[in-house]
């Protein structure tokens, strides 16, 4: 049995060494198949929800709900200079960062696609790139094609895969974050910093990428060697990490006069910052969805601790920070911050690879959650926003 496995592994490595192009082609094909399968999955369960409600099936553009509406507005008319949305006229789109709407804008502006549909199509496209990017990130941990299928499936059938079909920035964020970690592990410092810069222009938590970047460079060189070796490329990378957010903040300063408008605009949602432990504790006390969201954060932190134990310090710290930052405000939306992080799926990948018997259990959990979330999304529930 072990001999057979070893033979398969050596065969896989042989294929890998025969030609670098063969694997990317296979990865592209695999990603494509998984995106289509993911799309069929989402449309099917959405259709069930529509049957239940007796309403006609969703058109693709109608998957654009909640935050996607904000993205659609940005795609259509850019950012507003003053808040004017909502019942109190105090809501603005400023905390929806620009890279995702910018990426969907050509579809809308040049091809006349409706803004909501453009966002949905863009998020689906970025699901494809997210799978590809994750496959690249875990390449060194893959032994054969079934590992690649496992890794790709984790992204395509993420428990919260609905966000990749609903016009959200999650799939783009995941693509860039996975690429950033892939570059980082290969010591491509400037490229990794550039990925960090793009990440910080996609979602606010993306700016946390600067921390694993610094940790990786310090682990590699140490502070004294880093200075002695005059590694300018590492300094360029560090400064690139928050550059996307910095550019956006400068733009907002020019537009609104308030560089921190993305943070300040949360006032319209009644969100204030506080002690994350107290906020998680309160979530646990509340019950129902709030308790579930709080538990999701805790599970994410457990995964982060496990990654640290596996000496994957950069990913562990990044995952922990990406949960900690939103946890200082609220637990709502926490599943997005946990399940759409490459380190989280990387931890799941390593676990399932190490303990294959868990794969069936995880598949049941992820499939069940994904189907439930699609159903809830389709009936307009705010349990998944």
């Amino acid at each position, binding site marked *: 049995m072990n001999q057979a496995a070893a033979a398969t592994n050596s065969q896989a490595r042989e294929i890998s060494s025969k030609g670098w192009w063969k694997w990317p082609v296979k990865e592209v094909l695999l990603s494509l198949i998984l995106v289509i399968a993911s799309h069929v999955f989402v449309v099917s369960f959405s259709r069930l929800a529509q049957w239940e409600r007796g309403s006609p099936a969703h058109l693709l553009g109608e998957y654009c709900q909640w935050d996607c509406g904000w993205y659609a507005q940005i795609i259509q008319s850019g950012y507003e200079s003053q808040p004017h949305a909502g019942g109190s006229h105090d809501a603005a789109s400023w905390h929806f960062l620009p890279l995702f709407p910018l990426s969907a804008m050509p579809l809308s502006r040049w091809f006349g696609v409706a803004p909501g549909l453009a966002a949905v199509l863009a998020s689906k496209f970025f699901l494809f790139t997210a799978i590809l990017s994750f496959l690249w990130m875990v390449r060194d941990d893959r032994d054969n094609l079934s590992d690649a299928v496992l890794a790709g499936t984790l992204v395509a059938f993420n428990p919260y895969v609905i966000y990749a079909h609903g016009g959200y920035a999650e799939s783009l964020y995941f693509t860039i974050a996975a690429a950033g970690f892939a570059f980082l592990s290969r010591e491509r410092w400037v490229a990794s910093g550039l990925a960090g810069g793009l990440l910080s222009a996609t979602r606010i938590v993306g700016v946390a990428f600067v921390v694993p970047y610094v940790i990786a460079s310090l682990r590699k060189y140490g502070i004294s060697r880093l200075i002695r070796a005059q590694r300018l490329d590492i300094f360029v990378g560090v400064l690139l990490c928050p550059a996307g957010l910095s550019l956006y903040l400068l733009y907002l*300063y020019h537009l609104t006069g308030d560089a921190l408008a993305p943070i300040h605009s949360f006032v319209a949602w009644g969100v204030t910052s506080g002690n994350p432990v107290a906020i998680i504790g309160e979530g646990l006390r509340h019950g129902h969805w709030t308790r579930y969201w709080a538990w999701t954060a805790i599970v994410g932190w457990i995964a982060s601790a496990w990654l640290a134990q596996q000496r994957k310090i950069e990913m562990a710290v990044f995952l922990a920070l990406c949960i900690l930052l939103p946890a200082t405000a609220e637990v709502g939306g926490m599943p997005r911050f946990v399940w759409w992080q490459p380190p989280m799926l990387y931890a799941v990948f390593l676990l399932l690879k190490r303990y294959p018997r868990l794969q069936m259990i995880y598949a049941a959990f992820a499939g069940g959650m994904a189907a439930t979330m699609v159903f809830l999304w389709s009936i307009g529930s705010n349990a998944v926003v």
Partner: protein
Amino acid sequence: MLSSSAIMRTTLRILLVIALLGLHLSVLYAILHPKVSPEYKAYFIDRTSRDWRPQHYHVLPQEGIDLSREGLPDFVDQSYGISVRESFGRWTDTAMGLHAGFRLNRSFTGPVCLKMRLGASRPMLNQHVVVRFGDQQKDLLIDQTSLQDYALDYEESSPAHVLEFVFPKELPEASANDRRRVGLGIARIGIFPKACAAVGEECIGSACKPAK
């Protein structure tokens, strides 16, 4: 000996470092120097106000600031330290600061009478609160949780255009589900440009009683 391409690469990287440092420093400057209206600053940055571009309705100061009504009178520029509207009026909220009140767009000089319909939260019951109008201030003891009428006399020597309540300390949270730190429930405040004794029957509410 460095090759010319290595020199070029190093020069490019140095320029990039300088440009990126410049970018981040510019952002730091922008963060520290917001160019926003006082209303925006109070509502979004300091979070001391719950009124963002309120509708303004026309009434005279003596008719009063009716806080059970949506919006603010046209003689009020802005409120601060005051929570959202409820059926009776609005609570002050020390979570927004120890000062709660109104900036007026007209000023008052000479004798002024404030007629207020107020109620205390449990933590403020039988506690003193300072009621400041311009540079004059008076102590007021609120001895009822239900809404009662109170009247205070002022003699303004210089133009007064701020009316505020000053709380001695931050109050406890209203409840586990209500994080506000409510102090006074304000239903209405009338501003009369004369002494309270001369106001007489112009009291707001059914009965006016002198401040203790």
